[in-house]
């Protein structure tokens, strides 16, 4: 383009990583700074390398962990499910053979791949980060271009440390104003998805901006970027600022000394220019937001907790109506039922969306001195072993156990039910995870997505609730 205009944050990071511009319909070749690997989407990729006689080009930019199907109890025993065990063993063999650093089950740094990257200081502003997992968008909270890829692309990155890609379109999500007490990052992102829809972000990288975003902690920003994929987007980003630098300084892989100063100077340039243009813009009024929960079977089917189950007849187009009818039938809900009257059997606190220390602290503050209702089972699954250790140092484990919740080891757990942590058919959960798809948490299970505060209050009351209901 001859016309010179400013660039968005996403465009700047893209440009800095372009090894080669594509000609015509050909994609660009994009360099990848960090490749995160886990047991589910990697075995076929390593196998492909072996078949072609290829090596991992940059083991020093690659790191692996076991998270998706590890058990969260009795982790000192062999994994009971033989198929899960094979997958984990395969990862161990592959990492050994190809020289990739691995944090296995039981290791002090093991955890959900999107929790450990930031925790180790490996995720930094302006980087390109990929993983065979759609929630890789989490790392965009640091001003990185981070996105999920399929197994063929995992193999491609292992072999070449690059990906052939066309640039993404850009969308600004302006969240202006001040969040009320009790309204969290989770409520913001659920409201964004309800507004633009599960397909609204397709082809875009979202940049979250505005005063409400700037006031959030790094962990809250990760919650928001994490669920960009639930709006259909490739990635979500937030420009790095003092909050970002403060979080990173002193972490194991953060730059040190002179390199730290150089890095911060470079990171300060990572902002959308005033004269840059987004391909689309959406604005959300932060002052008007209240706790948000989902009622249906996709993350866009959500409403403020104070409302009632919608009547499909009242929904706009035929497709939305049809989808809502199917969802209500699966969820076993009647139109007009106040959301606060929906009773749950299970509360799940954890996942790459809400399994970090601040999430655990927020839920523990609600549960301190209270009891989980007799009708409810509550699982607390820290996002990483380090989160678990920190929580124990702060006595949060005792708060959860005293309230009647189960205190587990780290992993993805009931977010996707690949390990034994699953809902039974017909069971209903309030879950701090990211997907309420049919059967996601176990065949026939029904999921309501909520924030950690709503999860904790719901556990106490037995029906969907916020702390102010207690």
């Amino acid at each position, binding site marked *: 383009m001859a016309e010179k205009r400013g660039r968005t944050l996403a465009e700047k990071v893209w440009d800095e990583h372009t*090894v080669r511009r594509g000609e015509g319909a050909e994609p660009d070749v994009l360099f990848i700074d960090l490749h995160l690997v886990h047991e589910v989407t990697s*075995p*076929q990729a390593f196998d492909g390398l072996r078949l072609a006689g290829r090596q991992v080009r940059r083991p020093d930019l690659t790191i692996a962990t076991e998270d998706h199907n590890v058990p969260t109890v009795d982790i000192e025993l062999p994994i009971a499910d033989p198929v899960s065990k094979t997958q984990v063993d395969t990862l161990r063999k592959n990492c050994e053979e190809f020289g990739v650093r691995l944090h296995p089950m039981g290791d002090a740094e093991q955890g959900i791949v999107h929790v450990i990257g930031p925790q180790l200081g*490996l995720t930094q502003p302006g980087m390109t980060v990929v993983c065979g997992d759609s929630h890789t968008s989490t790392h965009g909270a640091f001003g990185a271009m981070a996105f999920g890829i399929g197994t063929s692309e995992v193999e491609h990155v292992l072999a070449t*440390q690059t990906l052939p890609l066309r640039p993404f379109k850009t969308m600004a999500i302006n969240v202006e104003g001040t969040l009320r007490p009790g309204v969290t990052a989770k409520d913001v992102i659920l409201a964004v998805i309800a507004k633009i829809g599960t397909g609204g972000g397709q082809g875009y990288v979202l940049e979250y901006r505005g005063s409400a975003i700037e006031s959030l902690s790094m962990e809250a920003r990760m919650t928001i970027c994490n669920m960009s994929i639930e709006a259909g987007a490739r990635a979500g980003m937030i420009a790095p600022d003092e909050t970002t630098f403060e979080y990173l300084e002193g972490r194991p*892989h953060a730059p040190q000394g002179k390199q730290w100063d*150089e890095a911060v100077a470079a990171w300060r340039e990572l902002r959308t220019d005033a004269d840059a243009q987004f391909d689309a813009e959406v604005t959300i009024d932060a002052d008007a937001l209240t706790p948000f929960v989902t009622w249906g079977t996709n993350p866009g089917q959500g409403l403020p907790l104070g409302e009632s189950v919608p009547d499909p007849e009242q929904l706009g187009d035929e497709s939305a109506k049809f989808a809502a009818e199917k969802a209500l039938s699966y969820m076993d809900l009647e139109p007009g039922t106040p959301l606060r009257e929906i009773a749950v059997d299970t509360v799940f606190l954890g996942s790459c969306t809400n399994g970090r220390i601040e999430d655990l602290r927020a839920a523990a503050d609600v549960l301190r001195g209270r009891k989980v209702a007799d009708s409810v089972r509550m699982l607390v699954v820290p996002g990483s072993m380090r989160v678990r250790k920190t929580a124990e140092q702060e006595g949060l484990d005792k708060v959860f156990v005293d309230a009647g919740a189960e205190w587990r080891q780290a992993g993805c757990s009931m977010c996707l039910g690949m390990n034994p942590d699953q809902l039974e058919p017909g069971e209903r959960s309030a879950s701090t995870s990211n997907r309420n*798809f049919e059967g996601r948490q176990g065949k026939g299970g029904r999921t309501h997505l909520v924030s950690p505060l709503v999860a904790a209050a719901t556990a106490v009351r037995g029906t969907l609730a916020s702390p102010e209901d207690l």
Partner: protein
Amino acid sequence: MEPITEHTGIGVPLRRSNVDTDQIIPAVYLKRVSRTGFEDGLFAAWRGDEQFVLNVEPFDRGTVLVAGPDFGTGSSREHAVWALMNYGFRVVISSRFADIFRGNAGKQGLVAAQCSPDDVELLWKILENDPGTEVTVDLAEKTVRAKDFSAPFEIDDYTRWRLMEGLDDIALTLRHADDIAEFERGRPAHKPVTLPAAQSQ
């Protein structure tokens, strides 16, 4: 990857929108370490229903899936593409695909053909009124045909070219190995590495 320029097979109408990858293949079926055998998990939750389209003759022999908008949303699992292909599908037609699914499909040789919502509706009617109707997807012409119905579909030109030539992405990128090496030499020193210095390049 096998080159594919045209495919003809029985069309299967799947009247659902937002068919996410957890529906295409639930997580409990993702534990294999091979690329084959995933057909048993395809639409597992729905296959128990006798009325489900893949349980009905002749749709069980279908190779062209015609689905509602936002097909393949959610998880990045390429197993969704493997499950469809292991079952026998060669083409999915929808009015809108999730980005990661579309990318994964292109890598494996599954054609993700994007038609207008009206054309998808017309195709559904044809397939429902006359089960067993064959659908032809022509990559050279970028058209979908069934009986006297013919409509254009969209697919990006690069993916179309790779599908028609049957080219391996990694080999294509490795033609630029010198560019990659040069880029690596220019990376800022403050970028992190995962391994201790002794093991790094």
